C-alpha cells in the first residue's frame, strides 16, 4: 500500500484512499461509540474482544472475521491517543500481517479536521489469514529477566511518573505515554522523538523493550513511536507490569519521598 517500513499513515492520505475500498479500516472503540459514527468504511473491533483472548489463533480468527487476508492493507484507529490501536496493530503484526498501520490521528482529531464520518456499517466478506508468528517483536517476562542486565538493552516504562516512582522493573527508565504525542497527532514528530532519545542517552541501536501497566496499550504506543523513527530492534513486553508483579519478580521504587501527596488527583 504505502511505504511499509513506516508504521503510521497520514490522515490526509487515508482520506484519499477511503473510496478505493481496498483498505480495511478498523475502529477499535466500543461498539456503541462506533455505531454513533465512525470513519467512512471502517469496521469495528472493540479492543476488549481482542484482549479477551489474544492467542495467535484468536487473533487470526478476528482478522479473518474482519475480512483481513494476508494481503489486505489495514489501518487501525481509536480515540484513546493511539494506545488501543497500537495494541491491535501490534497483534496483527505478531501473527505475521505485513501491511497494517496506525492512523496518525484519533477519531476526535479526524472529526476536527472535518473529514468524512458515517454511521453506515460496511458488509464484511470473511477472508483467510495465515499465522506466521513474528516472535522478534514480543518480550516475555522470562526473556526480559534474562536480558535486562545486558548493556545493549534498554527497558522503557510508559506509565505515568507517579506509578513509575512507586514501583517499576529494576533498571527501567520512564517515558510516560503522554510524552509520545504532539498537538493534533498521536505521535511526536520524528525530530522530537529523536531528540528525546538523544537527551536521555538512549541509542537507536539498542534493543528496546517497552512495558506499561497491564495489557501493552501505552507501551504499544511507545513501540510504534520508536518504530516511527526507524529503531530496528524493539520488543513489547505485552503482559507488562501486572504480570511481572504477579510472578513476584524484583521491583524497584523511589524511596523516602511522599511524591503521591503532590498530586491534585
Amino acid at each position, binding site marked *: 500500500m504505502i511505504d511499509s517500513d513506516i508504521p503510521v499513515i497520514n490522515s490526509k492520505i487515508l482520506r484519499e484512499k477511503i473510496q478505493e475500498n481496498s483498505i480495511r479500516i478498523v475502529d477499535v472503540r466500543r461498539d456503541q461509540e462506533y455505531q454513533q459514527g465512525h470513519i467512512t468504511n471502517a469496521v469495528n473491533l472493540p479492543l476488549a474482544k481482542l484482549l479477551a483472548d489474544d492467542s495467535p489463533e484468536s487473533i487470526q480468527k478476528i482478522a479473518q472475521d474482519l475480512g483481513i487476508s494476508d494481503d489486505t492493507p489495514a489501518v487501525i484507529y481509536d480515540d484513546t491517543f493511539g494506545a488501543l490501536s497500537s495494541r491491535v496493530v501490534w497483534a496483527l503484526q505478531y501473527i505475521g500481517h505485513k501491511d497494517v498501520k496506525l492512523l496518525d490521528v484519533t477519531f476526535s482529531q479526524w472529526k476536527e479536521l472535518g473529514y468524512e464520518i458515517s454511521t453506515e456499517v460496511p458488509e464484511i466478506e470473511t477472508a483467510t489469514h495465515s499465522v506466521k508468528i513474528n516472535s522478534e517483536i514480543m518480550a516475555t517476562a522470562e526473556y526480559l529477566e534474562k536480558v535486562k542486565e545486558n548493556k545493549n538493552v534498554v527497558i522503557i516504562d510508559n506509565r505515568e511518573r507517579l506509578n513509575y516512582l512507586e514501583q517499576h522493573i529494576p533498571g527501567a527508565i520512564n517515558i*510516560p505515554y*503522554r510524552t509520545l504525542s504532539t*498537538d493534533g497527532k498521536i505521535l511526536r514528530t520524528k525530530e522530537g522523538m529523536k531528540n*528525546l532519545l538523544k537527551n*536521555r*542517552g538512549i541509542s537507536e541501536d539498542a534493543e528496546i523493550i517497552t512495558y506499561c501497566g497491564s495489557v501493552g496499550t501505552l507501551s504499544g504506543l511507545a513501540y510504534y513511536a520508536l518504530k516511527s523513527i526507524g529503531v530496528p530492534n524493539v520488543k513489547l513486553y505485552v503482559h507488562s507490569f501486572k504480570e511481572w508483579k504477579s510472578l513476584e519478580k524484583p521491583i524497584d521504587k523511589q524511596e523516602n519521598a*511522599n511524591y503521591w501527596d*503532590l498530586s491534585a488527583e
Partner: protein
Amino acid sequence: MAQQLRPSKPADKQPKIDWSRRQEAENFAETVKLFRQGKIDHDSFRRYRLQHGAYGTRMTDDYAMVRIKVPAGQIYPPQLEKIAQLSEMYSIGSAHFSTRENIQLHWVILEDVSEIMQSLADVGMTSREACGNTVRNVMCSPLSGVCKDEIFDATPYALAIARFMLRNPICQGLPRKFKFNFTCCEKHGMIRIVDVGLLPQIQEIDGEKRKGFKIFLGGGLGNRSFVGHQLEDFTPVEDLLYTSMAVIRIFDRMGDRKNLSRNRMRYLVNEMGWEKFQNLVLKERAIVKATQSVIVKLNIDDAINEIQRPISVTDESTSIPDGYARWQKTNVEKQSQSGFNSVFIGLEAGDITANQLRSVAEIIRDYSAEGFARNGFSQNIVIRYVHDDDLVSLYSKLLETGLAKSGSLTMASAVGCSGTTSCNLALTNSHRLAKEVQRKFLELNFDEDDDLKDSTIKISGCPNSCGQHQIATIGFYGGGGRHEANMFPNYTMSLGGKFDEDAMLGHHTARVPVKRIIPVILKIIELFKENKQPDDTLAKWIDRVVKGNESSKITGVEDIKKEIAPLIAPPKIEDEPDFYMDYGSDTNYHTVTGKGECAA
C-alpha cells in the same frame, strides 16, 4: 438578570513580555550531558542548574523540580495550557503554585528539563533565575490594579524591574538569593518580609502629584527572620531603579559569601545595623546616578489593559447551585471598578491537575474581562474582572472541574511547602499536613466563621521558610521528636505572626506532634471562643495573648501551653502506632528521614 447583547469572545490576550531565550534550552541539554560524562563537577553543575531554574529533588540526582517564573504573577491562558501539557509529559500530571507566584513541575527527569525549557519558550515563559543566587521572581500583589486601598497600580513597575534584572550581569553571582515584592496595599503584599518591598505612594512636591514608593529593605524569613526597614519617607519612581541597583551592588560587594546559612541580605543589615546600612544605600544610590555612562532607565509599559467583558455564558435560567453563597463569601473580593470582582481559586497546598489547568484557561477566556489571571501569594490563582452577573455561572464551571472549594480568603486555605514530597531539606510532610488541615477546616465550616477570617495557617517542613510559617497566625515548622526509642514528626508551633503594617514574627509556643496538630488548633480556637471579646477575631486575640495583653483566663502564651499540654504528650508506640508515622507514610518516622537531618 437580563441577557444583553455583547461582543463575541475576543482573541486570546497575548503576553506582553517574552521572558524566554530559546538558546538556553539547548545549552542546558548539552551541560547535562557533560555533567553525566563527568566533564563538569558536581558543584559547578549545581550552580548552573539552579541559575536555570531547576532545583534538586529529594534523595536523588535523577530528577529536578522546574520552577517557572511568573513575573508579577501575570499568567495567560495559552501558558496555563502549555504547563498542563508539560505536567503530563514530563512531570506527575499535576503542577504546583508556589507562595512566590511561581509554577513548579516536580519529579522531572533531569534529561527532560531542556524539553520543558523549549516548550516554555513557545509561550514566552522562562525558568531562568528562578532558583540559585539570583533575583528571584519579582512578585506583585494579585490585586494590584483592582484593590480598593491602593494608590496606584504597581504592576508596570514590577514587570519593569523583573525585565531589568533578568539575565542582567549585575545579578548573576550574588552572595545569595534576592527577592522583590510589590504590593497594592499593606494588607495584600508581604512587603516587609523580603529583601526589597515596595508600596505605592503619591506625594505632592511643588504642587505636583508624583508617583513613588515606600521601600522596605532587609526583611526576610528563614532560620532567622527579620522584618524590613523603611528606607526613606518617599522614593519617587525616577529613583526606583537607582535604589534597586544600589541595594544590589552593596549586597554583592559586602554580603557574606562564605557562610551559606547566614548570607541573605537581612543578616548584613542586622550585623551592620540599620542606620549604617541605610546611609550606605543612599550614598551608593548617589554614586549609581552620578556614574551612569549611559542613562539606564526602566522600561515602564503603563498602557492601560483593555477591559472587554467576554461574551456572557450566563443566561436567566442559570439556577444558583448549592454552596454558592458560602463560596462567594469566602472567595470573592469586590474590585475598585464597579461591577467587577476578583475570584480566588483555592488549591490544596497549591496543587492542580493538568485538566484543571486547562479548565482555568477556558474560564479565564470566558469570564475575565482582562483576559489573563494572576498567581496569588497563597498557592492560589486569582481571576479578575469577573462581572457581578457572571459569578454564578463561573462558580458552576468551577464546580464541574473540582475547583470550587470555599475558603480561599480565609484561615481554611492552609499554606504548606512541598516538604518530603520532593524537597531534599524537608524533615516532614508539611505538604500533606496543609491539605489535611484544610479538609478538616472545610468539614467544620470554619471558612464561614467571620471570627477566623483574618487568620492564617502556614506550614513549613523544616526550619527554613518556604511555607512562611513565621508570618502566620498559627504557624508550624517540621522537625523530629523522640519518645523512648522512637521518633515521630514534631512541629514547632508559633503564634501571632503578621505581615501587614504591624509585621511581626510568630512567637514560638510549643512543639506539637504531627498527629496532634489538628486537635491543638481546634483547642486554641475553642479557648479563643470561650475568652473572646464581642468583636474579636482570632488574630486579634492571639496578638494580645502573645504580647501578654490579654486579660481573660488566658493571659499569655504560658496559659496556652498549659492548656494544650495534655494533648501533646506522646503515647506508647504500642498504644498508638500511627502517632509515630508521618502523613502519607505507613512506616515509622525515623526510617523515612534523610541521614543526619533529624539532628538539625
